[in-house]
Structure formats: C-alpha cells, structure tokens
C-alpha cells in the first residue's frame, strides 16, 4: 500500500516538475504569453497535501497555480491550452496561468492579488458546513499572504465558526524578492496562528512524505467531530525566479548557498530512488506521453472567437 502511494506521489511530483520544465522550454518561443510563476522545487507541498484529499474536496490557491491545480486533478490539456491562450483552455483563454480553474475537479481558482482567495476558501467552507457536507476545503497561499490583513481576518472567522478548512502556508521565505525576516518582526507564523485558537503543524524540510502525513492527520481531524480549521506550514524553496522560466541568483537577493540544501533534498530525486527502476520508467514514460499530447493539443487548438471578448461578463 505504501509502495502504491509512493508511486502515486512520484508520478505527481515528476509530472508537475516536467510540465513546468516544458513550460520553461517553450517560453522563449513566446507561444505562452502569460506570466508564469513556476513551482519547481515546491511541488512537494501541493502533492503531499492533495494526496490526502478526496475528489470532492475543494482547493483554492494562488497565482503560483500549476502545482496544486495538477496535484488535485486539474486537466493538463486544458491548462496548457489556457497558457497558450486558446479557446479550449480551462478558462477559454480569459484567465491565463494565474487564474487556473477546474470546477469539475474541485480546483476553484486563484488570484493574482496575494492573499485574496483565503477569504473565498473560508466562505466555501462555511457553505459546506451549512449544507452538512463532509467535504473539506484547502487554502494554499505563500508566506507573502500572511502579511495581508485578509489572512488574519480569515483565520479569526474560520476559527470562530470551526470551519472544515485546511490552511496551507507554502513558506518559501520570499515575497517576490523580500525575505520574511525583512517583513516581520516575529517570523514564527505558527505561533501567531495558534493565538487565533487554531491548531498548527509545521514541516520544515520540504519532505513530501512528512507533508502528506501531517495533511492526512489534519484532514481526518477536519472531517471528524472536532472540526476545524487547521493550519499547516510547509517550509519550501523556489528554485526559479519569482515570475518567468529562468533562475535569478544573479540578482543578489539570495545565494546559491541558501538554495543548496533545498536542491539537495529534491523530492523528485528522493522519491525516484524509492521506486523500482522498471516501475519508475513506466511512470515517467506515461507522463512524458501525456505532456507531449497536452502541448500538441495546446499548439493546434484555435484561439477564441472575437465574440468571446464580451461573453461571460455577466450572466445575461
């Protein structure tokens, strides 16, 4: 059973890594005219958490949206078509990389304005509780979002109403180029969240198995009589620049030395080593084929018709 789970986790982290590497490869051709915020290096958080979810659970996220979108079952072909601005993209070319959505698979969308969707996740969780459903909501956000007032307002209300909501903070230390320690006097996020009456856990090494274990325990608590919410902080590291396909160590705001331990703990390589070579090759071949198909789909699909400019503004 654990073997099957490790293989699922590997498939998921490998798939996200390879999709984003392909995006980075295609990007210089200008076929993708959408600002891409890559999750390379951070895949473990989305993958570890989403492995603990059911298909009827719902996730809200951020503009760094590829990883949790794919991890929770978002359609890859529609995602690639969206990045290419095509009519068959998940948002018909009207959302772009920062607003991926797949309602049928419980991916409820993302905001470019940091912290915004945390409150939307809160409302969704309120509705689920009122409707007596036993699905839960996950709100993914970065450490930058914890600077925003809406984060604190949302924690307070979610705690007050004991909502079935898992807050997942992907702490990669940087809001664009500014380190957490240059933004907060007290950098211990968990302590602050605990003060709202919310139980917290922290995984400090990007270990996908530990993240999964913590998420699984939290989700089971949320579905149980104890209710929620729960806050999970996952320290992680972004390998690429804030936005775009390249590295950015030349800017000088962070160093290779800082990145090294995170790169050495790469969860793609780590899980790969736990899987029998023939199984691993089989997983990788299937993912590569899926990515090839998705890119070919995105390349060949049509752009939206002109009339789409004014559709979906309102419902009538």
């Amino acid at each position, binding site marked *: 059973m654990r073997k099957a789970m490790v293989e699922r986790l590997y498939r998921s982290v490998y798939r996200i890594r390879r999709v984003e590497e392909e995006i980075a490869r295609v990007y210089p051709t200008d076929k993708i005219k959408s600002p891409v915020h890559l999750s390379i290096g951070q895949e473990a958080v989305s993958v570890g958490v989403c492995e603990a979810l059911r298909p009827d659970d719902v996730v809200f996220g951020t503009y760094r949206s590829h990883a949790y979108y794919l991890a929770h079952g978002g359609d890859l072909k529609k995602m690639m078509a969206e990045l290419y601005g095509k009519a068959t993209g998940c948002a018909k070319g009207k959302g772009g990389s920062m607003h991926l959505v*797949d309602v049928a698979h419980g991916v409820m969308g993302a905001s470019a304005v940091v912290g915004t969707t945390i409150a939307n996740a809160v*409302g969704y969780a309120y509705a689920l509780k009122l409707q007596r459903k036993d699905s839960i909501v996950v709100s993914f956000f970065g450490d930058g979002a914890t600077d925003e007032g809406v984060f604190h307002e949302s924690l307070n209300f979610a705690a007050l109403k004991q909502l079935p909501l898992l807050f997942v903070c992907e702490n990669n230390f940087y809001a664009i180029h500014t380190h957490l320690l240059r933004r907060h006097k007290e950098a211990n996020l968990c302590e602050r969240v605990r003060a709202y009456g919310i139980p917290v856990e922290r995984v400090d090494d990007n270990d996908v198995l530990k993240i999964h274990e913590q998420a699984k325990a939290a989700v089971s608590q949320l579905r149980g009589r104890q209710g929620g919410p729960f806050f999970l902080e996952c320290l992680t590291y972004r390998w690429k620049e804030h936005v775009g396909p390249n590295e950015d160590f030349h800017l000088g705001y962070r160093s290779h030395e800082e990145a090294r331990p995170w790169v050495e703990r790469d969860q793609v390589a780590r899980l790969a080593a736990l899987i029998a070579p023939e199984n691993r090759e089989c997983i990788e071949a299937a993912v590569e084929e899926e990515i090839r198909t998705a890119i070919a789909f995105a390349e060949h699909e049509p752009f939206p018709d002109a009339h789409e400019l004014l559709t979906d503004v309102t419902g009538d």
Partner: protein
Amino acid sequence: MERVLSYVEAIREATDQQMAEDASVVVFGLDVDDPKAIQGTTRGLSEKYGPERVFGTPLSEEAMTGAAIGMALAGLRPIHIHIRMDFLLLAMNQLVNVAAKSRYMYGGQVHVPMVVRCMIGKSWGQGAQHSQGLHAYFMHVPGLKVVAPTNPYDAKGCLIQAIHDNDPVIYVEHRILHFQKGAVPEQPYRVAPGKARVMVEGSDVTLVGISYMLLECLRAGRYLKSVNVDAEVIDPIWLSPLDSETIVNSVRKTGRLCVVDNGWTTCGASAEILTQVIERLQGERQVVVHRMGYAPATCPPTPALEDLYYPNARTIASAVYDLVKGGRNHWLPDERKELQEMEFRGPF
C-alpha cells in the same frame, strides 16, 4: 385596498420571503442579529431561520466579502449587509478583483450570486465617512450590477431580483429613504435590471434623480410647476445596467436634461448619463444639459455647511429654471413646508 409598507418593511419582507422559499439564502454582516436589526430590515430573521443562516460577523469587511464570494461559489445566495457604504472601501479588492471578475476570468465555469446591501447616510452630522454615495465606483467595473431603489415597491422588487440574480449586485440604500412609505404587493415580484421608470411625465425638461436625490427632483418638479415649467422626472432605479434608452427618449422630446446625483459629479453617474445621452442624440437633436451633485468637498457635519453641500428641491428647481429659460434668472422658489418634510432624526 392597497397595502402600505415602509421601505424598511419592504426590505424585511423581501428577505423573509426569499429565505422561506430558498434555503440557500443567507444573511450576514455586523449587527444583523442585534436588537436594532439594521434599522429593522432584518428583524426576526435570526429567530426564524436560525443563527447559521442569519449571523453577525466580526468587523472584517474584506474577509467577510471574500467569504460571501466563496459561499456563492459553493451554491449559496449570500446577502452581506453594511450599515454604511463608506465601509465598502475596505472590501474593494474582493468586490472588484474577485466578485466582478470570476465569471469572466474563469471562462464562465463559475458565477457569483451575491447581494451587498449598503446604506448612504445624510444629515444629523453624518460627516466625512458616513455620507458617501460611492455607486459610481461600482458602475465603472464590468461584472457588477448596481441598483439604488428609491421607494418601498422597488426596494422589495429589486432586492428579490438581486437575490435571484446570478451576478453580484451592489444594492444601494439611503438612510432617509428608509422612512418612505408606499404601496407594496404582498406576493413576491421582481423589478428587472436595466429598466428605468418615468415617475412624472413632462415636456419641458428631463430630470433624472439618483437614490435620495430622486425625491428632491420630484419636489423640484412641483416647485417648477408653479412657474409653468413642465418637468419629466425619471428614476433610473438600476445604475448598472443603465436604461439609457428611457432617458434618451425623454430628452429627444424635451431637449433638456438635468441629472442630480447623490454623489460627486466628477467621473460620476451624472457624467455617465449625460455622455450616453449626448452620444446618442448628437446630430439628431439640439440638447442642453446640466448636472448637480455633492459639492466638490468632503461632507461637513455642521448644518451651516452641510445645507450647501447637497442639492435640494429649491436649488434643483432654480438650476432647471435657468436651463429651460436660458441664462441666469436668479429665481429661487420660496420654501414650501409640504416639500421640506424630513422624518429622519439622529443619531443614526
């Protein structure tokens, strides 16, 4: 016999009827379940529908607006109430960046049916931050609907429409309009978006009044009658979508248009209405226009200055008289008691 309700009672009844009919309707905001019950508009709803569907909230305008959006995405029909419109400025990110845009930026996969009820204050020293009519901010943004009913009939019909509407609706009330009384059918009914109403027919000038200013325009029309100026008075009701057709047809007849807004004129609803009318009629009909609104200042609480800050029936009548006669005539009607009634007393 016609049944007469106040504006407050009309809102309460609309909410009650929709909550009874549809379990997905929920009501929340600071103090919706307190003893004052938002001037009475939510009276008894918490007892009747329970604290899960009617609940007071922390003072967290952004998060609670964001939560309303999340509830709407999950299939609820939330009504979020703000005792003063000024507080919506704390919720602009959610309203403009999420509520207005979700349908579009998610390619039609979602819609956001939510009602934001908010009140504009006036007089009794409401001052800088309890008096703002910010409806133009929302008219500017595609994806939002904006309605400002001025009488109990429309208060009920527009609220029912807003609750059923699959788009976010900013429902603008005015504290003084809460005291209006009028005929309201008991059976639920809807007042459709994008349809204005001609309140008084006339041939000399078209007078458009927004929110509370519609009342002052109706009174101005009576002052003008005494000097044989025949004003057609129009209530746009819905500011977005705006029924410019009805206004254009009126101006085609009168050739004169005065828009009186319950807000500032610069980049405001009055500017928008004049522009749409002129765009339609230029080359076809000679038109003269005028607009009135808040003085270009912050609202002062002292009555000595506040009286000058707002247009009123007499200053509107005077300006319209000039528009009709041409030039400056220095005519200001004598105050008539029956056109001055004001039921509102403070503190809130």
